[in-house]
Structure formats: C-alpha cells, structure tokens
C-alpha cells in the first residue's frame, strides 16, 4: 500500500452518484441542424460562373458550349463578367437574363452544362442542380 488514493482509469468513469437531470432543461435537449445544403439556398443565387473560366480566358464560346479561338465563325464572345447563380438558372431554363445577348444565350447555357468538377463555376452549377 502506498497510502495514496487509487487513481487510475476508474477516476474517469462516470460515478454512480453523478446526478442526471431529466427535467431541468426548460428548452429542448435536442436541436436538429438543418442540412447544410438547405442553408446554402440563398448563396446559390449569388455564386458565380465565369464564361469561360480562366482555363479558356479570351476564348469565344461555340454554340455547343465548347471554348474556341476568338473570332471563330458561329461562336459568341465571352461574357464580360461572371454569371450569378440566378442568371445561370435562367439560362439553363432556356431564357435570357438581363444584360445577356439573346443570340448568345444558348452557347452560354451549353458551356455551363459542359462544366466538370474542378472547373471554375462547377460547384455553383452543381448547386443549381440540387433539389431544394
């Protein structure tokens, strides 16, 4: 015997004398965190999709959505500023958001549809596809 109180693993186990209050909390003891996606619904409308992205800066956009050299026949010029999520949604629905040339809308929509993981604007596009 060392004379010392035994201090070991048992010291960290709940004591049988621990008081558990079942009714002390006036508020609920369970709060459910809304799925993150639901909370990002607002930001989806303001996320941005550059057309085209930095990987093809300066390129024109062919009608099928592929970036092509500037001046290519039938292709449309790049957008001067990134599309916001809400504008992209309008384009994908077949309409033309304000400030976008209606004759270019289809090419831009196809560019967005061709976005893949890792490309600038893909996360925004993917968010637009999520059910809300």
């Amino acid at each position: 015997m060392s004379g010392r109180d035994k201090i070991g693993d048992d010291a960290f186990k709940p004591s049988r004398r621990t008081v558990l209050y079942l009714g002390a909390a006036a508020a609920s003891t369970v709060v459910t965190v809304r799925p993150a996606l639901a909370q990002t619904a607002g930001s989806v409308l303001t996320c941005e999709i550059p057309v085209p992205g930095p990987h093809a800066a300066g390129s024109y956009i062919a009608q099928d959505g592929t970036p092509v050299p500037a001046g290519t026949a039938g292709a449309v010029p790049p957008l001067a500023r990134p599309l916001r999520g809400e504008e992209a949604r309008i384009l994908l629905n077949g309409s033309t958001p304000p400030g976008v040339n209606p004759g270019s809308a289809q090419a831009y929509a196809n560019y967005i549809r061709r976005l893949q993981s890792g490309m600038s604007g893909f996360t925004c596009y993917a968010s637009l596809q999520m059910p809300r």
Partner: protein
Amino acid sequence: MAAPRYVADPGDAIRLVALDGLSALYHLPSGTTHIVAPPAPEILEALQEGPADAAELLARLRERYELEERADEAIGIRLIELEQAGLVRRA
C-alpha cells in the same frame, strides 16, 4: 393501455462528439446532425440494452445516475423529443 416501448438505433449508427457541455450527434441512417444536451446521450446509451418503456428506462438510468425526484414525469417528454428528432422510435 400498455406504455409505449422505445428503441434506438445501434451504437454504430451514431457518431457522438462531446463539445463544451453539449454533444454533436450525427445519425448515419438519416444523415442528420443534432446538437444534444444531457440527458439525451444518456437515454440513447441506456436504450442500447434493448427496447424499454419509460419505467424500464428510468430503472436503467438509476443504475448509472442519481435522478431528481420528478424524473418519472420528465422522461416521457425527453422520449417524445428524441422520437420527433428521429433518434428513437416506438418498438
């Protein structure tokens, strides 16, 4: 009418991380995260022994903890909360 018996998912269906006095609980079957305060984790742990009605659950908790006098009134409210959150269901 017999008292309802409650059952919780197995322990491996839950990930529990203790925070400062609260716990973050991730429920794998539903993919939902909850912030829970005592006695919710303790009730879920006690239900790991199997389905129980309120009286049986209180008996299990009394084996581990000291409960207040009116615990028998409060346990039903706590179980309803857990049921509404999808963390327990009626057996």
